[in-house]
């Protein structure tokens, strides 16, 4: 997410956030202790994509993420996951 990206990371050529990515950090902060709402920085994009897919199809228990995941296409999720995965925590 924009604000968790250090100036150094931006200078190293991190790309602009793809559609939807910047809204995630409203809840998914970089520095959350514990796993209640986990940080997305540096996570394996495959894991983020799988989680979003499972939220969307209802196979992963959710409070709010099922409702949010249904708002994103596979391509959008792929781009968001890749973007977060590329940012060093």
């Amino acid at each position, binding site marked *: 997410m924009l604000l968790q990206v250090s100036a150094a990371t931006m200078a190293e050529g991190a790309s602009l956030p793809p559609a939807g990515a910047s*809204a995630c950090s409203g809840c998914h902060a970089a520095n959350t202790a514990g796993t209640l*709402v986990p940080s997305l920085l540096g996570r394996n994009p495959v894991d983020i994509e799988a989680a979003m897919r499972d939220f969307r199809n209802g196979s992963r228990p959710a409070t*709010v993420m099922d409702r949010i995941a249904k708002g994103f296409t596979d391509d959008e999720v792929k781009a968001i996951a890749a973007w977060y995965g590329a940012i060093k925590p």
Partner: protein
Amino acid sequence: MAAGLTAGLPLPAFARGAAGQVVVVGGGFGGATCARAVKRLEPGLTVTLVEADPAATYTACPFSNEVIAGARGLGEQQFRYDKLAADDIAVCFLPALAVDPQHQVVTVADGRKFPYDRLVLAPGIDFRGGDPPGYGEAAATLMPHAWKAGPQTLLLRRQLQAMPEGGTVVITAPENPYRCPPGPYERASLIAHFLKTNKPRAKLLLLDAKDTFSKQKLFQNAWAALYPGLIEWVSLSQGGKVTAVDAQAMTLATDFATHKADVANVIPSQKAGGIAAIAGVADKTGWCPIDPVTFASTLQPNIHVIGDAAVAGAMPKSAFAANAQAKVCAAAIVASLAGDPAPTAKLINTCYSLVAPDYGISVAGVYHAADGKLLDVEGAGGTSPIDAPPERRAAEAAEAKAWFRAITAEVFG
């Protein structure tokens, strides 16, 4: 040169970056987020934040209902701008008094002028005078609105604590649109929680200018379960619209009755914060029409409006939405200054409400630009389930708290 807090000094000419100047008016969830996002995306831009609070402190509204109910301290709601200054954002703690859209200059209260290539207005809300009739600044010292957090929050809390047993609390809820659609109902819930514990014979009357409200079924089911007989909601059709208030007499009149209150919380009708009309970006509704992709005003060039002040289609007026809009707006501004097309945007909102400290409910939405408006993405979003075990409600309450920590860390940390 590091631009620190510029409370007393004009910006020297050499400090104006050649790459462009972005001025943001309003240091809340929208404006502070936008200033930081612009600076992070393009460090070469000169970013100035104009914030009216002379104490250089932001007092957040989300969770202020817990302060009112005596379950939280106001200090937990307060944030400062040191980290923005450390990000090389020039922060000026004065109200903006004028905007010249032709010459692209903002004038602040001491006469200093801030030229801009792009201006972001995030002024939040102001109250429409005399709506309800009889309500204004003087009345607010007796019947607080507490719809801008700070001294009003503490005033309402003190009044509730001092209320005699068996008293009546009256809350009035305005017509749409207004800041924080579920807010009056969360407030009723948490005040009921306070009353049930501390003043069990008290009653709460909620006079509404509407016939429906956000998460209504969830709230009403929870009220019946947690606070039976305590909260009476009077809808518009049942005569809930307040036609006059008398703050001295502590009475609130509707078409059907005059109600005497021991404590009265009037949530007045609202409009965009005053600088919006001054800048010419507010329409006759009092709110600011914007482009759904860039948040650029449709009424004035090179001015963007975000947060509560904006007409943001299906997005509600919430802190979460303001923060999301701010980041999209920042990306659009940076692209525009670089001569690039605006990025495609998708936005999210999630509004949490606490019906009790351990009982949370939420409404979420995902939005995109279509037909010139911000619309809900079909099939996404929605509310918490109508029936859910206590563990689910407790989980959402915990997530609400986690959200507040995350978002305030992002904006001010």
